[in-house]
């Protein structure tokens, strides 16, 4: 798929001032959280493809997306995370005092990522995608996200683990641009540090065992129970347990899958 066309659609609709940008995401968000609890719905991929149909399909890498498209995709996720933690830190009584230092640090990083990605898009003469309006209740499914710490933590884990998989999934698409690839990798591992810390605060292991999401939406952990790496069934060449093998390798998500996860939180 070609997300840039989607973003172009977003920008055009904003410029026209006839239609709000929410319409561009409607195909994703209207599916709501039900989409998150099932396998990645093909309907979402279909709606995005429909939105971008007829485009020139220009791409300069194996993933089918340009570097600017990938950066705007990453920027969208960073907007989401940044806003999420800003609101969480502002919510009175939500984050216990003992954990505030952790979320303050995470928030600083996400805000820095937003700034850095905007700059990166501009350095390539691209147009940074504008910040969407977010609904972290996902239409009411997580109604207590900013009053119930457990809900907040669950979504924090969901966003961080998704972020890790999202960056990983786009690395190949950045292979032609060494400086951008390196920056993306440097963000990617920071997201993984965040994910581990949030998981630990939740009483989870810092790593992902099989496809167990520990109460976070299962679709975020689809294919994490993978034991085949680079064509090698790792179970056949080591004696560590399958669980440990699955933990040892984080998996990718495609852009489509990530947008399906993020969609319900974008108004």
């Amino acid at each position, binding site marked *: 798929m070609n997300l840039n066309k989607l973003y172009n659609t977003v920008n055009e609709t904003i410029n026209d001032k006839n239609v709000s940008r929410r319409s561009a995401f409607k195909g994703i968000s209207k599916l709501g959280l039900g989409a998150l609890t099932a396998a990645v719905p093909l309907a979402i991929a279909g709606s995005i493809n429909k939105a971008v149909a007829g485009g020139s399909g220009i791409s300069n890498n194996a993933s089918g997306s340009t570097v600017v498209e990938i950066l705007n995709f990453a920027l969208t996720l960073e907007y989401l995370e940044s806003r999420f933690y800003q609101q969480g830190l502002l919510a009175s009584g939500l984050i216990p005092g003992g954990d505030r230092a*952790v979320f303050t640090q995470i928030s600083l990083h996400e805000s820095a990522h937003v*700034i850095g990605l905007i700059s990166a898009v501009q350095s390539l003469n691209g147009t940074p995608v504008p910040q969407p309006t977010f609904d972290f209740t996902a239409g009411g499914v997580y109604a207590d996200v900013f009053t119930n710490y457990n809900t907040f933590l669950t979504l924090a884990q969901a966003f961080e683990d998704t972020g890790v998989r999202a960056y990983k999934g786009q690395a190949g698409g950045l292979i032609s641009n060494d400086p951008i690839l390196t920056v993306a990798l440097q963000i990617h591992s920071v997201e993984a*540090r965040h994910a581990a810390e949030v998981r630990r605060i939740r009483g989870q292991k810092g790593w992902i065992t099989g496809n167990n999401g520990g109460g976070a939406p299962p679709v975020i952990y689809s294919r994490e129970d993978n034991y085949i790496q*680079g064509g090698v069934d790792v179970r056949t060449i080591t004696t560590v347990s399958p669980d440990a093998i699955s933990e040892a390798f984080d998996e990718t998500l495609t852009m489509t899958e990530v947008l399906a996860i993020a969609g319900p939180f974008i108004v």
Partner: protein
Amino acid sequence: MNTREKVNLPQKEKENSILNHPINRKRFLMFSGITALGIGLGIQGCSEDDIVTTSTNSVDLGAGDVGVLNYAYALEQLEAAFYIQVAASFYSGATSAEIQILTDIRDHEIAHRDFFKAAIGSAAIPSLEVNFSSIDFTSRNSVLNTAKAFEDLGVSAYNGAGYLIDSAAYLELAGKIVSVEARHAATIRDLLNPRSPDFAGNDVVDAAGLDVKRLPSEVLNIAKTYLVTSVTANNLP
């Protein structure tokens, strides 16, 4: 560990050496895959035979993607050897949570090591000889701070070498591993300084929110403290 390494180890490490404890040695061999598969995986010095067949004083990682994969393999060998020794005899006072974490990490690093060995095939570097004489395996502080250093080093190595990889498939594989190393780093850091910013501390993540990166030459210069084998990367930056 092996004869050469024992010479370098102070008495304390000798006594704690996994090879001086038959049960632990057996467990080690089981985890390292030698007894089960007989394909020669495992760190250097697991048996006298290994010393004879794979002993080498220096090794170059090679060029191109193979060089980068061997670079990763070298680092995973180092990490696996470290955690195998940690888990063979935990420092006194280790909590059940710490034992679980360090055992998990050991298994992850073994999986990484064995994967690279298999993936690189005949172009793989031999097993490296390690030198952990600077580590006090009886000390929580020494073990966890060494673990922190290794994990941060691993993260910086993958981040700094990603751009050297030509194959998108290999790049993705490196990505699958580096995020797990980062999870390790954050977890170890949280053990050392719980619920503080240190899990992604300002010593490793800069003001732009970017994790540390290092070139192979920089990483190897740090890693050499823990290696008997001289590892060079003459065809990598």
